């Protein structure tokens, strides 16, 4: 199978690889997928005082398209509010990376990862508020 230039670029030069402190109240972690299915994505986002995503990091186990999808997503979410990030749809990833139909599940997984990271941060913030 031939990969698009954009997939190859993200695969060879992945953006924002790494790890944020999962215990930090301003960091949300989303881990989706399963080794059994051949892909696992970990997406982390960090919000500033205004609730805007100021940093994002990822690590992904999976095929080239899965790696590229998560790398792209870290770029897309930066500078967005949580609500804006939550509105990102997998088809935007499909179009940007020119993913073939058999790889659409990679973009779905990336969308799920955003949702999971946002849910994590909201849960933390909810707890912080009720504790206050």
């Amino acid at each position: 199978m031939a990969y698009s230039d954009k997939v190859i670029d993200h695969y060879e030069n992945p953006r924002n690889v790494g790890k944020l402190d999962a215990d930090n109240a301003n960091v949300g972690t989303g881990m989706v997928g399963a080794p059994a299915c051949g892909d696992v994505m970990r997406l982390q986002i960090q919000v500033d005082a205004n609730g805007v995503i100021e940093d994002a990091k990822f690590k992904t186990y999976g095929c080239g398209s899965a790696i590229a999808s998560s790398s792209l997503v870290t770029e897309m979410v930066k500078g967005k509010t949580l609500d804006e990030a939550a509105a990102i749809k997998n088809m935007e990833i499909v179009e940007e990376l020119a993913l073939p139909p058999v790889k659409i599940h990679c973009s779905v997984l990336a969308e799920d990862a955003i949702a999971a990271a946002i849910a994590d941060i909201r849960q933390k913030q909810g707890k912080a508020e009720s504790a206050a």
Partner: protein
Amino acid sequence: MGNLNIPVYLDYSATTPVDERVAKAMMDCLTVQGNFGNPASRSHVFGWKAEDAVTEARANVAKLIGANPKEIVWTSGATEADNLAIKGAAHFNASKGKHIITVKTEHKAVLDTCRQLEREGFEVTYLDPEDNGLLDITKLADAIREDTTLVSVMHVNNEIGVIQDIAAIGALTRSKKILFHVDAAQSPGKVAIDVEAMNVDLMSLCAHKAYGPKGIGALYVRRKPRVRIEAQIHGGGHERGMRSGTLATHQIVGMGECFRLAHEEMEEENKRIEKMRDRLWDGLKDMEEVYLNGDLEQRIPGNMNISFNFVEGESLMMSLKDIAVSSGSACTSDSLEPSYVLRALGRNDELAHSSLRFTLGRFSTMEEVDFTVKEVRKAVEHLRNLSPLWDMHKDGIDLDTVQWAAH
């Protein structure tokens, strides 16, 4: 030889290039100046010459496996030979019984043929191999029933290269008077074959894994004691009625020639390939979390199937863009399952998804092996840096205890 050819071809178990000497022999059987006649034409010299060429090829194929030339039936490849053997034997013996035994690690040409027979009302037992890929013969003995008519076990596994103990299985099936079919598509030139000593009744062969052309193969059908099978392709009654269709002289000559060369050069060639294989494994085995799939000893020289834990196979292949290998990972095929062969060995999903098959052959070089070692190490390191599973492993987390959100 003795240099680096990029892209490096390390997928000899998928297919091999045709040896120049084989191609030359084939080209002599095509044009008006060549041996183009129909081997079935009995009335003129064109036919006789073609028949002579086919006869010589038949003898060369028979010789490599210790058979009589009269026991060779030409087919379009190993897939057709598997179909002819299994369906042909099952149907012919259906009045005696409808139970067949095979193994979960067989090629799809065997497994899917068995599935078809199940749809027709036959019963098939699919045995699990041991963790090293080899069949425990006592499990086979236990699976044999009154109504078992056929056992089908491959000689050399295409994914992991392990060599089954065909002689031991043959002794068992012969003593029980059950037919024994062997898919030996991957064997010629890699490991010695003797259908007499091994008590094999039916054996599938093909040319394109042994430096011959694609689209030609053969089924060995034992004559003493006589094995009878039902034809699957009907027509002019060629090949003693077992497989009709005008014989493809050039293909057959190609198969004969590559089997002749295999017979002559096998010993020398395997020594050379084994040295390269050892160098490949020595270059990789000291990495962390690297596992060899399949038995190391009972294995053909050219095969290395290795799992690089916490790295997914398809992305690894993408990194190795100058090296042609194959992967047992799901993403390379339409199915979502990782390699069924590795799963049958009891490998967990991570390891099955993380495997690469390197197969070396006649035109491989040490330089190519060294290049491959270097590239693989680099790629695995790059991908582990990207892998959350590797992080977790390094943090001491047992992945089996994690609740995954399966999708």
